[in-house]
């Protein structure tokens, strides 16, 4: 796998668009869903994931093959997300409007929920809104650490490598994120059903 990826990266660095396309096709879902988890919107996820692949294309000659291509792309995604938050001071008003409208504004989400009965659909929408609101209470780094741990199943070491911080700080940020989420979601207490780290990784890949 390593040799295969290194070969693809080498070809792509020489301008081989077919090789680059292969890299995109192999990783687009992982990177899109990581971007979705970070940004909370399908439109922003598409923009962010495409920005990631463009950055990757421009710097593919820097890929050394020490880690996998997907780990390298994860790192680019996380840094691009943190850059956006830093530069744009991510529009809090826009997010609040989106939350106020509820997820009905996201046609993709509506599509996926269309077949449910109305009562369950309304309850699910409510839960999604509260989950998104809870995530908004986290700082960009806390959110990134939580998302990568909980939804992407990354280890503390992998997260630290992506963010350029130690595993100790990953643990501190994770602890803070959990405490904040617990405070915000205090009114929602659902029984934990078969939760495991492996489930987190499998369900969201």
């Amino acid at each position, binding site marked *: 796998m390593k040799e295969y990826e290194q070969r693809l990266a080498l070809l792509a660095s020489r301008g081989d*668009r077919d090789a680059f*396309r292969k890299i*995109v*096709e192999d990783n*687009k*879902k992982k990177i*899109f*869903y990581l971007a*979705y988890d970070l940004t909370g919107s*399908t439109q922003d996820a*598409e923009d962010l994931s*495409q920005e990631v*692949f*463009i950055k990757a294309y421009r710097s593919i000659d820097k890929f050394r093959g020490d880690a996998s291509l997907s780990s390298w792309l994860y790192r680019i995604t996380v840094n691009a997300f943190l850059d956006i938050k*830093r530069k744009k*001071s991510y529009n*809090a008003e826009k997010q609040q409007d989106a939350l106020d409208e509820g997820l009905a504004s*996201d046609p*993709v*989400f509506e*599509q*996926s929920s269309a077949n449910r009965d109305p009562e369950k659909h309304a309850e*699910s929408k409510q*839960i*999604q809104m*509260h*989950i998104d609101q*809870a995530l908004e209470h986290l*700082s*960009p*780094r806390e959110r990134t650490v939580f998302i990568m*741990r*909980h*939804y992407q199943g990354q*280890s*503390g070491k992998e997260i630290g490598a992506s963010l*350029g*911080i*130690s595993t*100790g*700080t990953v*643990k*501190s*940020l*994770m*602890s803070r994120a*959990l405490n904040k*989420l*617990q405070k915000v*979601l*205090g009114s*929602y*207490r*659902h*029984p*934990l*059903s078969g*939760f495991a*780290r492996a489930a*987190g990784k499998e369900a969201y890949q």
Partner: protein
Amino acid sequence: MKQCKKINQLMADAVYGDLSETGKRVFQDHIDTCPQCAQDYDKIKKTLGVMEQRERPEMSTGFWDNYYQRLEEKLDHSEKLESKERRKQLSVAQPHDFTVSTVHEPPSKRRWLTYVLATAAVLFVAAGIALYMSSMYEEDEGFAAATAAIPSYNTAVSDHFDSVQPVLVDYANYTPSQNKPVYAAQNGGEDELVTIGKSAIKKLLLENQMLKRVVAKQKNIPAKQLLEELEVILLELENGGDDPRGTRQLIKELIDEYDILFKMDVYKKKRKQKTLSPTTSL
């Protein structure tokens, strides 16, 4: 109480099954005997149970099939823009159109024009940087009115930066001693370590958290972001026990990456200007 604090920090590892065998035993023994920690652990598990219900959008087949095509269009477009920019830069650097003009200007005039253009470019870039920095740290129009009731919070943030800056400057300027063994021998086995006491770090972290809440309430986003970046560095200081050299290097890299010393200086200068300005209501 101290044990409860330690157990609280282990809860994230426990819930994800990342504790060692010994860690699991210690954790479970405490949970079995401490009702408060057991309750807190239960709350965390239930919170994660809710977070698990976050739904992922199911993107259509068409979305995935056309993903690369949309990406390629963006890539081609950005490459066209880049090449246009490169051509523009080349034409600025070479003011004469050699394919059209047959009139050759004297070399001294050509050089003078190049100097003028280069100076204008530098001034333009400097103005752009100044505008960007001022927009980054400019408060909302209602900020002065909103903070008139709490005139001391800006001072508190500046004081916090004053407390942290000397430590960060030490880390930013740290270079390993050339004669480590000699230095260590002369100093009772200690290398040139830049250290700060754990209780001092905890105090700074608490201060940082309190100030983050205050600035967030005042909707001062740039200050909040700056405090968040500082918090990551303070967490590294707090957590970096086992590998002092690795921690030092990491902190130095974070200071450079966030450009935190420069940003703190800019923040304090702007605060000072607002305080001294006769028009401010602070």
